[in-house]
């Protein structure tokens, strides 16, 4: 892919803290206009990578380009950033807080105020504009933080674990907003260790572990690479036999159903036959592996994941 088509292009990025290599030679092309998932376990180097994209940290070596430009001041104006560690001035009024966030991204205070007021109204916080941040509930503060990140219609939106700590209602609000902004043309980098969300939202992903890219590409390609060798089984009866069947790599129990990952070349029909003999099968489906399972396979065992 040509770098000019990329929203973000990283080449051989390295960052060490003391003797710890947080980012160990990451190269990535993140295309424009899509939601890109930066996934990986805690401590994999996601946040450090993001900080280098935004010039908050300087890489030891390697190159960052955003929309073809070297990382730096211009990049910050085009980028909205919601860090994982996010806060607000507690004693400041909500609208003033957002006015400031808009203003430091290049808007005039009046402009920023107008835009922020519009978003606050839309997210049902219209009555809270002149209240202090500390008077808001946690969920409300999260909305304010999100508005702060999207003020000024950034071309690139970087969201680091945007859903952590959100209640389901707000999760939906944020997800819809993300999709809406993406439809409006914003490129979005979405960093998370929640595989289900990444799978639902991202068109393309990069799996990072121990400072390196382990897997990358469009989601369907990544999955295809792992083949259609998973089976969903829903049944009544004792499931312990599944683990003992020949050709079964692993079994994940999801309560209602089990996901059986097969070894390469194993025959799903054999699993079905074996199951029918022992239990009452209510559902049997050959599927692509979930991102979750790919993640566990790639990372599992090496690192504790949350």
């Amino acid at each position, binding site marked *: 892919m040509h770098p000019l088509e990329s929203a973000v292009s990283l080449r051989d990025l390295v960052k060490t803290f003391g003797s710890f290599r947080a980012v160990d030679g990451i190269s990535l092309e993140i295309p424009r206009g899509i939601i890109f998932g930066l996934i990986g376990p805690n401590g994999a180097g996601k946040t450090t990578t993001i*900080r280098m994209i*935004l*010039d*908050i*940290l300087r890489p030891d070596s390697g190159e960052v380009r955003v929309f073809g430009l070297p990382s730096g*001041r211009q990049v*910050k*104006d085009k*980028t*909205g*950033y*919601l*860090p994982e*560690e*996010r*806060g*607000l*001035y*507690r004693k*400041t009024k909500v609208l003033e807080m957002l006015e*400031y*966030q808009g*203003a*430091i*991204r*290049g808007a005039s*205070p009046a402009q920023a105020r107008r835009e922020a007021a519009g978003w606050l109204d839309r997210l049902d916080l219209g009555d809270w504009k002149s209240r202090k941040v500390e008077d808001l509930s946690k969920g409300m503060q999260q909305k304010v*933080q999100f508005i*702060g*990140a999207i003020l000024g219609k950034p071309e690139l939106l*970087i969201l680091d674990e945007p859903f952590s700590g959100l209640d389901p209602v707000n999760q939906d609000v944020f997800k819809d907003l993300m999709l809406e902004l993406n439809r409006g043309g914003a490129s979005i980098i979405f960093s998370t260790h929640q595989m289900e969300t990444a799978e639902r939202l991202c068109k393309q992903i990069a799996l990072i572990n121990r400072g390196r890219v382990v897997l990358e590409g469009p989601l369907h390609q990544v999955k295809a690479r792992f083949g259609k060798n998973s089976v969903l089984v829903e049944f009544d009866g004792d499931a312990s036999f599944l683990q003992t069947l020949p050709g079964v790599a692993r079994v994940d129990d999801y309560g209602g159903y089990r996901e059986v990952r097969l070894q390469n070349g194993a025959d799903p029909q054999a699993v079905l036959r074996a199951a029918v003999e022992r239990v009452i099968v209510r559902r049997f489906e050959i599927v692509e592996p979930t991102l979750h399972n790919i993640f566990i396979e790639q990372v599992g065992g090496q690192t504790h994941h949350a």
Partner: protein
Amino acid sequence: MHKLLMVIRREYLERIRKRSFWLGTLLLPLLMVGLVVVQVLLADVETGKQRKIALVDGTGRLAATFMSKLGEEKNKDGASSYSVEVVPVKGSVEETRGALEPRILSGDLYGVITAGDDVDATSNFRFYARSVGNVFALKALQRALRESVVGLRLEKSHLDVGAEELKKLLAPVEMESFEVKEQGQAKKRGFDEAYFGTFAFVMVLYMALLLYGVAVMRGILEEKSNRIMEVLLGSLTPDELMTGKILGIGLVGLTQMAIYIASVALLRLYVGMAALQAGWTGALDTISPSKMAYFCIFFLLGYFLYTSMFAAVGAVCNSEQEAQNLQSPLVMCLVVPMVMTFFFVANPDSPAAVIASLIPLFAPMVMFMRIMILTPPFWQIALSILLLIVTIYFFFRGVGRIFRIGVLMYGKRPTVPEILKWARG
């Protein structure tokens, strides 16, 4: 530039809108004036009382003159400040004095003066009191005693001098002091006036540097502990954030100084004429426009120097408790020149004062003191300012590097050598 302005704007408005800013701005001068007034009132109450002095006179001939001389000390109502009780010597002078001790301790007597019979001997005259700290009282007693003793000594030397003659001989020699700054412009000024005038301004300078330095440090600590730092750094460079904060809070400081200087200027206009007539020019000279200009210059330079260091402390610490230890050397650098004000005011041209006024860490306060007392050679002022500016430039660069690394670090505070390593980049 826009971003920097926006940071300055926020830091400025945020503070200037607070009620505490205005309360502090108004209360500080009121407090200082109040303290002075209370002290004067208290001193008045004390001097209003008549003090009883016992005289144990071994010569047997001092009493009359001493009583009349001490009787000349009047309080502001015209009554005598002292009453003298002449205690006849029983046994030795020392025994007599010992017998008076209970009355000193009970507060009946303010003090006891003993005189041995040899008026020429050293340590012939002694003063015993519960407290000997009252300089004014000691001076008055000493004067009365000296004048009475000189009479005795003259007599002993067989010089017969009449009472009138003696009074003339002993008439006090007063010396008035004048400051020479420009040709033909000598101004009457006393040490007390110079000292207290200077001390008041140095005190304001010290408090302002400390308060605003700590304000910058607190602001950074707040942004760290609220986890807002990274949100801001998504849009701002660390330099913009740090510089904006320092300039914004500096502007708050300047606003406060401007309020003070404007009120002093108004006061000057208002009482100026009356003061000139009263010959009270020395005090007015302390607040001349050129001195106020120097005050602002050294406040600003000192502010940039110290806040950059306070900003570094804020950047590497996680809490105010942690910052306490690191900031104490900075506070010491401010305290040392302040407590040495007396020395610098008394010896503004001494090598120590000249050197201290050129060392950037002390320069803002010491050079300002020297300017208040005398006009130092222009090259010294210029060199001091130049050295300050150069130091500030390097400090800002080093602190900028510390800031960039420090603000996103949580957890263990780095050691001082580590911090210095960051500063070198």
